């Protein structure tokens, strides 16, 4: 019902009414349209009231307790990721435009729609907005930019991923795990998004330092591609590959076990902790190389602004890792509970009805 214009008997310009219906925020569209219908006088007034209602909805959402903090962090993280490729002024302009886009997007996201899909859409939209705005700025002021198109795209992904993580933390539903099997793919994508952001960061840091021995890290995108093939290939036993179903185990349990294997959980053993620390050490390598070059007084070819912005992004991604890890842990627990409940339900004998007696 929410996606179809109701059969309105009022007013002649049907196109105008359809536009007004489409423009109303989804969360209160039915209520507002019903009210407009009940108190209808003219199409002009209806359009005015539609725009008034949109303005009110935009303003009212900022009264959420988390909203000002989130908007501020979003505004800081996007310019931080853009400083390598844009001047501070244009980074601010782009960040403001993207934040405004996301601000409008918030009104059109239904808060009742649980699950993580909406956060992923946010990430996609933020990335597209960042790339489009940067391209526009690039076309207008090409003299002020580093002419490296891949670096611009990479920075956009890093900024958008960072911004969307903030949205994820602040907008996480209160009880997100009641649809854990449906949400699992979105949670896995959040993990992959985080890894991609780390790899992009590593790539751009190396570009900023331009230091021979660590240039091997620029091969990271190739490594990521290989890992993705490894994860999905049935021949290599990838966990994301279609699995053969066992006839002796409960299908739900098989699905849950498969899902659990793909999520990165908090390190349990010293070896796992070492791997985790090693990953962050590798991420810090370009910064360490830059410090070494500075110490030995050969820092002329280091882009320090770019590198400092990347160091800030690394810090933020490290903080996000704690949240992603916690999210994975809670997902695994929710999956276990779901399987346990299902097995308990199957073990219970069916209740006798009057027809059986």
């Amino acid at each position, binding site marked *: 019902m929410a996606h179809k214009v109701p059969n309105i008997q009022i007013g002649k310009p049907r196109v105008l009414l359809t536009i007004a219906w489409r423009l109303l925020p989804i969360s209160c569209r039915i209520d507002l349209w*019903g*009210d407009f219908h*009940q108190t209808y006088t003219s199409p002009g007034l209806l359009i005015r009231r539609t725009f008034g*209602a949109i303005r009110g*909805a935009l303003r009212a959402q900022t*009264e959420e307790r988390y909203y000002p903090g989130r908007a501020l962090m979003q505004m800081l993280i996007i310019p931080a990721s853009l400083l390598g490729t844009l001047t501070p002024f244009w980074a601010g302009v782009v960040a403001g435009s993207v934040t405004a886009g996301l601000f409008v997007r918030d009104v059109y996201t239904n808060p009742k729609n649980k699950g993580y899909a909406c956060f992923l859409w946010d990430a996609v939209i933020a990335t597209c907005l960042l790339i489009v705005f940067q391209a526009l700025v690039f076309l207008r002021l090409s003299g002020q930019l580093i002419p490296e198109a891949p670096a611009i795209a990479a920075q956009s992904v890093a900024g958008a991923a960072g911004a969307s993580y903030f949205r994820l933390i602040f907008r996480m539903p209160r009880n997100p795990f009641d649809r854990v099997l449906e949400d699992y793919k979105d949670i896995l994508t959040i993990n992959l998004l985080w890894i991609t952001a780390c790899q992009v960061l590593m790539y751009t840091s190396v570009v900023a330092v331009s230091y021979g021995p660590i240039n091997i890290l620029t091969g990271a995108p190739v490594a990521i591609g290989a890992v993705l093939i490894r994860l999905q290939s049935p021949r290599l036993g990838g966990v994301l590959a279609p699995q053969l179903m066992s006839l002796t185990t409960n299908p739900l349990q098989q699905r849950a076990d498969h899902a659990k294997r793909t999520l990165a959980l908090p390190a349990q053993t010293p070896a796992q902790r070492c791997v985790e620390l090693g990953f962050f050490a590798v991420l810090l390598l370009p910064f360490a190389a830059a410090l070494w070059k500075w110490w030995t007084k050969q820092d002329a070819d280091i882009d320090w602004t770019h590198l400092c912005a990347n160091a800030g992004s690394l810090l933020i991604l490290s903080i996000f890792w704690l949240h992603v890890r916690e999210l994975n842990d809670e997902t695994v627990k929710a999956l276990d509970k779901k399987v346990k409940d299902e097995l308990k339900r199957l073990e219970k004998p069916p209740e006798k009805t009057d027809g059986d007696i």
Partner: protein
Amino acid sequence: MEKDKLTHLEESLLAAVAALGEDAYGLAVYNKLCELEDDPNQGSMYVTLDRLERKGYLVSQYTLPLPERGGLPKKYYRVKPEGAAALKESFEKSKRKMKAVPNSFWRFVKWPIKFPIYK
């Protein structure tokens, strides 16, 4: 459920829904809100009503589709005990603020303001 402070609009909306009793649906709440607030906005009202529901202060239910609303349903709201408690607490705070100001203030406040001169 964590306790949140009520904003000005949230307080007015809870009061409007409480005042309307069984007739508290969107448009009626808006009309009541017009009596309580200067120039309220319908979009703000629905977003705030939704937030009050998520906070656990209100509960709502849709009716069947109605012809007078172009085949769309009405949404009726009721205040939950948690909402009533929050509204009461908010009113008591306002009462305390009112009590803090002496009655003489209202009689003698006038322009221009004069401060005592200390030498």
